[in-house]
């Protein structure tokens, strides 16, 4: 069975500081990994994904994520956080070519303070 863990329920960061949201996964084979963001009272929006190739992937709003196969991690990063980045972030995984079932982590709430 596939699973995703987001070990931090909440991350607090000052505006302008680097932001990291952690994600680890467990899946058979080669995973496809995703990050989604949910702003207050809005639906989930896709941020970025890793399928294959370069381990560092870049996405929307200046976010990037690094795939680390040995550590089974896919941490989300942003070099300089904005107050508007305050939201709920979800990591998700599918089992690559074995199927498209999308499994989510529990989510991490990010609070960026001015």
């Amino acid at each position, binding site marked *: 069975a596939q699973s995703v863990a987001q070990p931090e329920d909440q991350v607090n960061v000052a505006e302008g500081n680097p932001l990291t949201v952690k994600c680890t996964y467990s899946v058979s084979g080669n995973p496809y990994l995703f990050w989604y963001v949910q702003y207050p009272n809005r639906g989930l929006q896709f941020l970025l994904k890793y399928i294959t190739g370069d381990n560092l992937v870049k996405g929307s709003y200046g976010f990037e994520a690094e795939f680390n196969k040995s550590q089974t991690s896919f941490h989300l990063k942003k070099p300089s956080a904005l107050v508007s980045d305050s939201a709920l972030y979800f990591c998700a995984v599918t089992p690559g070519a074995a199927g*498209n079932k999308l499994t989510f982590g529990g989510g991490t709430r990010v609070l960026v303070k001015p």
Partner: protein
Amino acid sequence: GAGVSQSPSNKVTEKGKDVELRCDPISGHTALYWYRQSLGQGLEFLIYFQGNSAPDKSGLPSDRFSAERTGGSVSTLTIQRTQQEDSAVYLCASSPAGWGTEAFFGQGTRLTVV
């Protein structure tokens, strides 16, 4: 339509009543997912349809929950004899054919059982 459409957006029902939640996926998307989100928390997987394959129902919490997808398009999630613990936001998502494609989410149906 341009995106995934869910109806109704809000539903208040009395305990013990049956409810039907509707999802209109993006045209041509072969995969359709239902998730449940309680109080801005994580996403709980309910059911997954992929093309003409048998659906993955492994996330349905009880036999009061069922879902169908007619003609490979519209899906209905039915909850029979609703209970207060069923209160949550029910999210639908769809994705195109092919591995590693991101899912697009609807705005959700907020279900309140009183």
